[in-house]
C-alpha cells in the first residue's frame, strides 16, 4: 500500500512538472510585469529546484501538512475538509440509495427469471444505464426546481444552515447519481443470484423444506454478494472522485469541482494533494472490500486474499 502511494507521488509530481502553465502568471494575468511574477513565484516557493520541492511536499504529506493553496492562499487541508463534507455525504447517500433500489430489484428479477416482472426491471435497468446522469440531472432540475419549485436548482446550503436544508440540497444530486448506478448494480445482482440459485445446495435447502423466499434471501443472496460488493466498491471509489459532472450541473462545492478548478487555475499543490488523497481512498476502499469478502464467505478467512 505504501509503495503504491509512493509511486503515485512520483507520477503525479512528474506529470504536473511537465504540464504547461505557470500558476503565478495565471493569477496575475496579462498585465503582470516580470518582477511581480518572480516575486509571487518566490512567495509560493516555486523558485526552488524540482527535487527540493518534491521532497518538501512528500515530507509535508507524511507529517500531515498538505501545504498552502496557491490560488486561495489557505491551507489545502482546510479546503479539502470543507469539500469532503459535501462529497462524502453525497457519495454515501448515493451508494445507499442505489443499493436499496438495486438489490431487491435484482433478486426479484432473478427469481422471476424471464417472466414479465424480470423483463420490466431489466428494461428499466437498460434505460438507466443508457441515460447519461447529467441529462437525468437536468431533467430532475427542470421538473422539481423550475416547474414544481419543491427543491433548489442547485448549490449547497451548508451543514451550518441545518441538517434538513443541507440534505434537501443534496437530494436531487443523490438521485441523479444513484439511478444509473443502481441500474448497473441491479443487473449484476440479478446475474449473480441467477447463477447461485442453480447450485445444488439451494435445491438441497428447498428439499429440506426451506421456503422459496427464505432460500432466495438467506441462502442465495449471501452467496451472490461477492460480485455485488466488488462492483459497489468500484462505484464508491467513482462516487468519491467522479462526481464532477453532477457537481457542475448542481454547482455543488465538492471534491470533483475542487480538482477541476485547481487544474484549470494551475493550483498544482491542490491537484497533487487531491490525487494522492483519492489514491489512498481507493486503496482503503479496496481493502474494505477484501474484508467484506471474508465476512460474506467464511471460507476466505485466514487464507489471505481471495
Amino acid at each position, binding site marked *: 500500500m505504501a509503495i503504491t502511494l509512493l509511486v503515485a507521488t512520483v507520477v503525479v509530481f512528474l506529470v504536473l512538472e511537465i504540464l*504547461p*502553465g*505557470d*500558476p503565478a*502568471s*495565471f*493569477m*496575475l*494575468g*496579462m*498585465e*503582470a*510585469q516580470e*518582477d*511581480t511574477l518572480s*516575486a*509571487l513565484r518566490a*512567495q509560493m516557493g516555486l523558485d526552488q529546484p524540482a527535487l527540493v520541492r518534491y521532497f518538501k511536499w512528500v515530507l509535508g504529506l507524511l507529517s500531515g501538512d498538505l501545504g498552502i493553496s496557491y*490560488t*486561495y*492562499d*489557505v491551507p489545502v487541508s482546510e*479546503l479539502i475538509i*470543507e*469539500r469532503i463534507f459535501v462529497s462524502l455525504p453525497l457519495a454515501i447517500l448515493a451508494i445507499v440509495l442505489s443499493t436499496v433500489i438495486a438489490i431487491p430489484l435484482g433478486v426479484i428479477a432473478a427469481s422471476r427469471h424471464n417472466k414479465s416482472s424480470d423483463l420490466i426491471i431489466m428494461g428499466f435497468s437498460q434505460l438507466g444505464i443508457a441515460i447519461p446522469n447529467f441529462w437525468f440531472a*437536468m431533467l430532475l*432540475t*427542470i421538473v422539481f*426546481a*423550475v416547474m414544481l*419549485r419543491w427543491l*433548489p*436548482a*442547485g*448549490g*449547497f446550503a*451548508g451543514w451550518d444552515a441545518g441538517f434538513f436544508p443541507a440534505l434537501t440540497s443534496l437530494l436531487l444530486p443523490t438521485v441523479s447519481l444513484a439511478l444509473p448506478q443502481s441500474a448497473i448494480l441491479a443487473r449484476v445482482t440479478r446475474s449473480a443470484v441467477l447463477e447461485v440459485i442453480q447450485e445444488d445446495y439451494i435445491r438441497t435447502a428447498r428439499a429440506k423444506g426451506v421456503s422459496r423466499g427464505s432460500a432466495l434471501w438467506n441462502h442465495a443472496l449471501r452467496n451472490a454478494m461477492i460480485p455485488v460488493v466488488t462492483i459497489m466498491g468500484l462505484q464508491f471509489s467513482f462516487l468519491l472522485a467522479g462526481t464532477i459532472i453532477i457537481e*457542475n*450541473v*448542481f*454547482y*455543488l*462545492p*465538492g471534491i470533483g*469541482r*475542487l480538482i477541476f*478548478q485547481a487544474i*484549470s*487555475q*494551475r493550483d498544482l499543490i491542490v491537484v497533487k494533494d487531491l490525487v494522492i488523497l483519492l489514491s489512498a481512498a481507493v486503496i482503503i476502499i479496496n481493502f474494505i472490500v477484501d474484508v467484506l469478502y471474508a465476512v460474506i464467505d467464511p471460507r476466505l478467512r485466514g487464507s489471505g486474499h481471495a
Partner: protein
Amino acid sequence: MMMKKLIKVFLVSAGIIFLSSSAMAAKTSLTMGVVLEPPHLDPTAGAAAAIDEIVYANVFEGLTQIDQNGAVQPALAESWTISDDKLTYTFNLHKGVKFHDGTDMDADDVVFSLNRAMAEGSVNAQKGLFKPIASVNKTGPHTVVVTLNQVTGGFLFSMGWGDAVIVAEESAEKNKSNPVGTGPFKFSKWAKGSHIELVRNDNYWGDAAKLTKATFKIIPDPAAAVSAMMAGDVDAFANFPAPESMEQFKSDPRFAVVIGNTEGETILSTNNTKAPFDNVKVRQAMAYALDRQAIIDGAMFGYGTPIGSHFAPHHPAYVDLTGRYEHNLAMARQLLREAGFPNGFKAVIKLPPPSYARRGGEIIASQLKKVGIELEIVPVEWAQWLKQVFKATDYDLTIVSHTEPMDIGIYARDKYYFNYKSPKFQALMKKLDQTVGTDERYAILAEAQKMLSDEAVNGFLFQLAKHGVWNKDVKGLWENSPVQANNLTKVYWTN
C-alpha cells in the same frame, strides 16, 4: 352565536395577516450569480476579474472611483488639485472614514497603500498603473501629495482601478481571506466553491447601501445558471454566461434583460512577426475575408457591436472604421495573390476556453477557408494560453477579448504578444501621454485607431456585450461595465 364569533376571529386574523404582509417592506437582500469564483478577495494582489466583481466599490474604495459611464468620480478623496505642470496631485481625503475593523482611514493608509503597490516585492497585477508615481507624501492628517515623474493624462482614472484601492496596514496581509475596506458593505462569509456573503456596513461614511445583505453564488455551468434563474434561486446575473439563453429570459415577464456594453474588444490576435503574417497584405486580405456580423450572429447570438479597430464604440473618441475592410472575398484573394499566396496557406489558431473564442474560431476558420487559408483549430486552457501564446508568442492566430478599459496603448509596448513593433505608433502614444487637453487627446486617439486599422494589426471583430438578467423588481444594477465590477451600492428592490 358561536359561528358569528368564529367568523369574527377569522376576519380579524385575516386582516392582521393582510396588513402585516402589505406592511412588510421590500426585500433587502440580493442573491447574485457569478460564473467564476475569485481565487481570493484582495484586488491588489491578483488579476482575476472575479475579485473585483465582488469587492470593487462594495468592500474596497480607492481615491477615485469609476462610475457607470466610465467617468472618474471622487471616492475616498473628496477633492484634489493638480499643479500647473500637471506633475503634482494633492488629494484631500474625506474625514471620519473608518475601515470595517474600526480603525481610521487617513493619509497614512493612502501612503501605505500606494507604496505597497509600487514596492519591489509587490504582487500587484497592475503595477504599471503606479509607474508614473515618483513619490507619495503625507502633508496633513487628511492630505496626500502624489508627485509624478511624467505627465500622465489618465492618472486619476488609474487611481480608480480595483488594483489601486486603499487598504490598512494592519489588515492588508489578511485581505485575501478576510477583506477589510472602507466600502458600504462588509465581508461576512465565504463558503469556498459555493457562495460569498457581504453585509451592510452601518458605519459607512457616505450614503448607506439600501441592501442589508448581498450573496454571490458561484455557478460556472451555463445550463445550471439558467435553472437557477428560472427557479428563483438567484435574483440577478450581471454577466450571464450564455447569450443563447437571452431570448428565453426575454419572453418571461419575471425578468428584466439588459444588454449593455463592456470594455472587451474581441480580436483575432495575429502574430505580426511570424510569416506570412508579417506581410501587411496578408493581414489585410484576412480583414477582407472576415464577415464580422456572421461571427457575432453565430458565436454570440447577435449580441455584440462590430469594431474596426482596437477601441470601444461607446467611448467619445471612437471612430467607426468597420467600413475600412468591407467583407469582400475577391479583394481578399487579390491581396493574397499580391502577397505571393495565390493558393492561400496553412496556419494554426489557438483558442482559449470562453465561448466567444471557441465558437468564433470555428466560424473564422470557415470564413478564411473561402480564400484558401486553412486553419487548424487547437483548443487550449487559460494557463496554457498564457504560457504559449501570451508569454512565448508561440502562435499564429488566437481569439481573445481585451477587457481593460482604454487599452490601445498595448500596441505601443516593446514586448507584447502581437509582436507589432511600430515606432510610428509608439511615438503617437508618447504624444498622447504628454497631452492633457481633451480635444487634442481625442484627435490623437482617432489617428491611433486609423493606424491600427490601416495596418490590419489584428482582426478586429466585435465589442463584447454584457448580458444582464435580473428580477424585474431589482433596480440600480449597472447596465454597462466600464470596469469589471458589480457595484451594489445603489441597488434596491421595488417590491
